[in-house]
């Protein structure tokens, strides 16, 4: 399992359990995230706190899941990005596609708004 998922105030908080989020795990990540959406997840916080770096393949999987979420009338947000990963999101403008939160708590609280 790439993802470890808990429920916090009706949000699903799913933590990526690898340091190197790259080509070797991107397909598994995508499958597991699709699974959360297909089993009814409507607000999913993807927690990057354990991740050191991400590559384009992993970001592609995340975007694919975002599109699946939209068609399922669900939402995916991200939290816990380190400086390099946040910079990468900004570099290719994924900060315009995802809500980005500093902490899980802030991401979960945003759902209540």
């Amino acid at each position, binding site marked *: 399992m790439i993802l470890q998922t808990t429920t916090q105030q009706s949000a699903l908080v799913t933590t990526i359990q690898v340091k*190197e989020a*790259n*080509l070797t795990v991107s397909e598994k990540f995508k499958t597991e995230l699709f699974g959360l959406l297909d089993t009814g997840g409507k607000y999913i916080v993807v927690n990057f706190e354990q991740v050191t*770096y991400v590559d384009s393949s992993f970001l592609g999987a995340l*975007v694919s899941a975002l599109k699946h979420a939209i*068609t399922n009338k669900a939402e995916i947000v991200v939290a816990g990005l380190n400086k390099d990963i946040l910079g990468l999101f900004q*570099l*290719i*403008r994924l900060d315009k*596609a995802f809500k980005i939160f500093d902490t899980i708590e802030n991401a979960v609280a945003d759902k209540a708004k």
Partner: protein
Amino acid sequence: MAATVSKQLTFNHTADELYPLVLEGVDFLQHGAGVAGDTLTKVKLVLMELLTNALKHSDGGKTEIELYLDPENITIKKNDTGNPLVVYSGGIKHEWPLPGNHQAGRTVCVYSWNGCNLSIALKNNCRAEFLVEETGPEQTDLLNLPEHFGLMIIARACSSFEYEFEIDTCKNEFTAVIPLAGSAINDKYD
């Protein structure tokens, strides 16, 4: 001529090697040549994406990465004899070497989203330059968001990013240039 410092890395296309090789290249520039900060972050991104590209598309063999440092730029070259560059534009497949000798001056758009295009300016049927084009205004139709970001990441992190297919040897060469100072965003159309 200004002095150039260089290092070569060999990638045998296993996933386990990928991140350690990125760190080896970064370490060489950081501790061996004093490169730091934002520039080093860009080097890391470019190395990671070039090696990921090799892992995905280089059909066996090995990939050589060369790092060059001169007083103005860091130049990163990736060479292999694997599969040549293939891009899709408007549903049309473009595979190098491109057919015919009439390609010079053409531009192919390979990525478009949120007021930003990644285009390939063709120099001839074997040589191409990646260009980031700010088209504006921004729009965020998420269902049209591309899912392939590798070339865009490299192009945005560099001041120059080129590809060349060498017909005689079937060698693919990507060349990425990261300036040591100033903006590194590759916006040739601005």
